[in-house]
């Protein structure tokens, strides 16, 4: 087995909860690798005694699954109504600018992905963003841009 296959195997077989399903197995791989390579879809199909087609049906339904390796960092901005009414759109625009991007997605150099999130769950601190799943609330366009810059500078190779 390759290293990748070993990690997939360990993630799927390492699930602690009693109810193991196609979805729970895919979530376990996503947690381990940060994405679902086609090897994982094939492995889960075999493991669950179902078809690759049926596994893809589940994987493609839930937008939290990625199918290419993760970027180094992920920045999310909440676009739920709570955040929307207190300036999420302006903050998101500022995040895109700070990341040097035009629209949502992965930056071509793979350093950062910028995404809109339907609700980060801290509505009382709206508008909210997250940097590598770490929440920051009451953001402004200025603080949001600073957060992105700090995140991209922290590993020393500049924005």
């Amino acid at each position, binding site marked *: 087995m390759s290293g990748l296959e070993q990690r997939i195997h360990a993630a799927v077989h390492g699930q602690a*909860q009693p109810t193991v399903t*196609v979805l729970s197995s895919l979530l376990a791989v996503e947690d381990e690798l940060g994405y679902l390579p086609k090897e994982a879809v094939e492995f889960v199909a075999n493991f669950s005694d179902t078809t690759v087609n049926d596994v893809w049906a589940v994987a493609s*339904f839930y937008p939290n699954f990625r199918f290419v390796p993760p970027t180094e960092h992920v920045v999310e901005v909440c*676009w739920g*109504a709570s955040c929307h*009414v207190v300036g999420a759109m302006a903050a998101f625009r500022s995040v895109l600018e700070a990341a040097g991007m035009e629209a949502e997605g992965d930056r071509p150099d793979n350093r950062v992905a910028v995404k809109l999130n*339907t609700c980060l769950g801290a509505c009382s601190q709206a508008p909210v963003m997250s940097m590598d799943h770490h929440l920051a609330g009451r953001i402004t366009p200025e603080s949001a841009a600073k957060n992105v810059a700090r995140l991209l500078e922290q590993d020393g190779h500049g924005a």
Partner: protein
Amino acid sequence: MAPSFLEIGIEADRRWQGLIAGERPWIRIGTALCGEAAGAFEVAAATESALESQGVAAEVSRVGCLGLCFAEPLLDVQLPGGHRIFYSNVDAEKVGEIVSSHVAGGTPVKSLALGYLPQEGSDEPLPEGIPDLNQHPMRVWENRIALRNAGNIDPLDIYQYVANGGYQALHKTLTNLSRAETLEEVKASGLRGRGGAAFPTATKWSFLAGNPAPEKYVLCNCEEGDPGAFNDKNILESDPNTLLEGVIIAGYATGASKGYIFIRHGHDGPIERCRAAVRQAKELGLLGENIMGSDFSYDVEVALTGDSYVAGEETALMEAIEGKRAMPRFRPPFPAQVGLFGKPTNINNVKTLAYVPEIVSKGGKWFADIGHDTSTGTAILCLSGSLNYTGMVEVPLGINLKDVIFEAAGGMRNGKALKLLQTGGPLGGVLGADSVDILLDFEVLRAAGAIMGSGGIIAADETACVVDLTRSLIAFCQYESCGKCFPCRMGMSHLLEVLERICRLEGTDEDLSLMRTIGENMQAGSLCGHGQLGFNPVSSALRYFGSEFETHIVDRTCPTGTCSLPRYSPVASRR
């Protein structure tokens, strides 16, 4: 062998007394999602390093949310045997002063204090020059039942829950009440589902209780994808054992064999705290085989879903637990006949089940006496948007919504005027500022076109554009449509297209009637609430703000200027 409940209680009291009246001060820091977003984890780390560097001994606990989210990070200090003194919007610098002056020196920092909470049984005089936190506008309206422990106890320590009366309702149920008597107590309470439909809980439970199948399930729905609602996650983060005790009692009353608590993947705080509660309850014999020595055996599992708003719909939720796409099923058969894995199933919202322990402890009638008419008990409201005091309050049903907004939540920020409330999540509606003088009651709100939903209330001020907000709500509904029923899948896309056009000030005279036609078709032709209720944001916005739509279409003007700013919606969606 698991200890007896008496032994657990004695140990819990011993530990609790050690915390509140032991040798060392007790510092509690709110670390629910709201606290995290305000920097609570940094504050907790700064507290620990300040204690170390100043050589001060104190107990530090990461607790849940007291509801005063606007004041996060919120930290409180309780000197041994004393009252709790709260500090709001704490940062590393303030922590240094609080530790040296209050924790080490015993003198509260009055200039930084938000208020104190008097502690029962304390002989200490009440602090002078610091306000009583119970007199804070956000707390005076409250009657905390489901939230009674939130912000007070460490959610990762089941003993702290037990020390505050936890699992006594389960003990009472298993030693004194038959299944029918437990059901009768819930019936007497008049409790109605808090997930949105407000269906009588006892009636729902009786469907499952009446089914003689040997294997039956109780599901607790904490999918909670509603922007503006965070009370379910917050209960799991602040006091997961309240919910777990409710899930166990529901299992007993309905004769179920297993319970599932269903949470969205990625919400790590609620997931970890809930899993810890389940693990600890098993260790103490409060869950598993022959609970508390009775003949009742019951297991609870925490199951996860991927990102999907529709997974919060009760039949889609079962599909997701089975590992499939979260798409709703046809009904009949109803879940009480054919549910999860084909077995009879009952589904309740987190808040609904979190009330159950107190209802059993204090009696159904006690709960029924709170509230208004057939809307018994309390509402757990999430207050967000441009309000002064954002956060979570638990208030008796039947109070006036305007008191919630202008008193409890302190009115609008920066002296702006209230324009509208968006209630009940994205499938709920908007309510014009002139209509907020209205009772918090399931029927009254529904008649006004603004459902209670899950308890989310988002306030927007005069700078918000109602067309832009409606577009944003429909963009959410379009993104989250599971795609099973084409009236919803295509209707949402079509509505969004029309609303985008109106926002670009290119709307046509037919657009309003076109949207109504689409909405009627969605309502008539969709399998679940997502499509059936999905036109609510538009219809309620037109009801209260029809002229603002016309200004966009006829005068080609957006009065607030919002529509000339860039708009973004997610690229990916379910196809």
